[in-house]
């Protein structure tokens, strides 16, 4: 049966929507936060896993988006949705600008640059307390005027599905192929006709826009914003989620985010020791499963329902011909 994995995932989302009323408030909150992290991990994966641009400034965009929305609404009285959209658009533009500034940077240089940017943003939001209320926290307008978490739960699912649909479309289009070629060999990608600068700026803009989307939702869900939203601690959590799940595929990064968030709650009784457990899981992943713990499971999952055709004798012979001989014989 073709498309079985899609049907299974759609059924899971549908079941979540239908039975949402049965969840208790605490676990619904955990699920909403898990979806917030899932959008962040997916967009960080688009930037780092697909394009090879290892940014440590992703949470800064979530923070900028959230503060932009909250402050615009406070200052102008604009509708919440418009404020949220403004935050996302503003961050997309800032992301494109950062992408342009970092055009010649890769690897550790890019990571350090984006980390410095992130710290500058966090310190500005902490210090400018006349505007942002600093560490005391900026009170934001709630997205829904209700005590129930259900509207937020539905909204979080909607935003996650929307984010995954857009990012999924990108990575499965020719743009996704170009991003991966940039990750592999920037010079060869350029020689192949790929507009490297354009795509690097584009992916920074898109990933920053989605980080902001997660951030604005978070701000108007919790009703309070602090500069710690853009902290290195949260950035590390997002990276750990994506790496443990599998940072070269968006679904595995999303699985990592949801899995780690739930595990954090289950292990809450262990206090700081749970962070040690996550550290050990990360070490295990880097040593034994660099593509992420969920990648092998995901690869099995997407093959569900596929009809396996027997390999023809001609194909086997052709493959064998390529495997023997002086070159490609496995001698080196």
């Amino acid at each position, binding site marked *: 049966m073709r498309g079985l994995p899609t049907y299974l995932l759609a059924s899971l989302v549908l079941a979540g929507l239908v039975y949402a009323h049965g969840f208790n408030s605490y676990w619904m909150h955990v699920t909403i936060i898990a979806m917030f992290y899932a959008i962040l991990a997916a967009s960080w994966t688009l930037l780092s896993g697909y394009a090879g641009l290892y940014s440590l400034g992703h949470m800064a965009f979530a923070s900028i988006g959230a503060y932009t929305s909250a402050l615009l609404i406070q200052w102008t009285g604009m509708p919440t949705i418009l404020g949220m959209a403004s935050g996302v658009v503003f961050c997309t533009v800032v992301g494109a600008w950062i992408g342009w500034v970092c055009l010649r940077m890769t690897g550790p240089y890019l990571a350090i640059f984006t980390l410095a940017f992130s710290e500058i943003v966090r310190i500005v939001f902490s210090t400018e307390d006349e505007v942002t209320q600093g560490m005391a926290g900026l009170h934001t307008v709630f997205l829904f005027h209700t005590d129930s978490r259900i509207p937020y739960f539905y909204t979080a699912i909607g935003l996650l599905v929307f984010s995954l649909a857009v990012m999924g479309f990108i990575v499965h289009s020719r743009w996704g192929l170009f991003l991966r070629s940039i990750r592999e060999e920037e010079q060869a990608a350029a020689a192949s006709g790929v507009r490297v600068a354009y795509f690097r700026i584009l992916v920074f803009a898109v990933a920053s826009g989605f980080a902001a989307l997660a951030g604005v939702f978070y701000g108007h869900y919790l009703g309070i914003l602090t500069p710690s939203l853009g902290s290195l601690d949260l950035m590390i959590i997002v990276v750990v989620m994506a790496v443990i799940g599998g940072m070269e595929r968006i679904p595995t990064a999303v699985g990592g985010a949801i899995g780690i968030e739930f595990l954090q709650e289950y292990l809450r009784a262990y206090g700081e020791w749970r962070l040690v457990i996550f550290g050990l899981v990360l070490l295990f992943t880097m040593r034994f499963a660099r593509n992420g713990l969920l990648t092998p499971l995901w690869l099995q999952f997407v093959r569900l329902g596929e009809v396996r055709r027997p390999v023809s004798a001609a194909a086997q012979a052709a493959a064998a011909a390529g495997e023997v001989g*002086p070159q*490609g014989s496995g001698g080196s």
Partner: protein
Amino acid sequence: MTDPSRPAIIRGVQIRKHFGGIAATDGVDFDVLEGDLVGLIGPNGSGKTTLINILTGHLAAESGDVFLRDRRMTARPPHEFAAHGVGRTFQLTQLFGRMTVLENMLVPGLTRPHSTWASATEQARRHLAFLNLEHLSGLEAKNLSGGQQKLLELGRALMLDPAVLFLDEPFAGVHPKLREELIKRILQLHESGRTFVVVDHDMESILRIAGRLVVMARGRKIADGPPAAVREDQTVLAAYSGF
């Protein structure tokens, strides 16, 4: 060396580039005519790779100009050269290692205007069959042998349907059997009308295929002409020992 009956596809005029005070190219004029198969040779450090990096947009010259069929392309980015039909391979093979052989081919194929996945895939399969790599199309490129990687890099450049192809040391480190394969494919492509510039140290291979030989030494072009004449050139013999 010019031939009025054949237009120049690419032309470098007074190309000058220094690295740390050393002249990599020192006012080099270089043109490639339609249908040429140019062998570009010279001792290590003579400026061959620097010259083709400048002629393909991968390096900006300090002075001088690059023209692509009379269009000034000086300091334009490499993707613009590719879009105007300049293909190239690299001295150290540069493949998209964790992408499959087919995906490697699709990248340039899908940068072409009006290309579709179906047309690019069909074109890629055709080139892979020509290079005898079709049976490896699902394999990650990093798993190919050295010679197969050189062939794939050539195939990837062919996906641009290039007017001129620069091959930087295509025979380096390749097993003699696959080198023969590579030479055969280059000659077939040349006979079908493709224009090549081949940089290599393998004199035997270069002399077998080149219709024109350009020799560089210390950043300057010291000879340009038919291989037989260049081989007898006293300046070349003095600068380039070994033949």
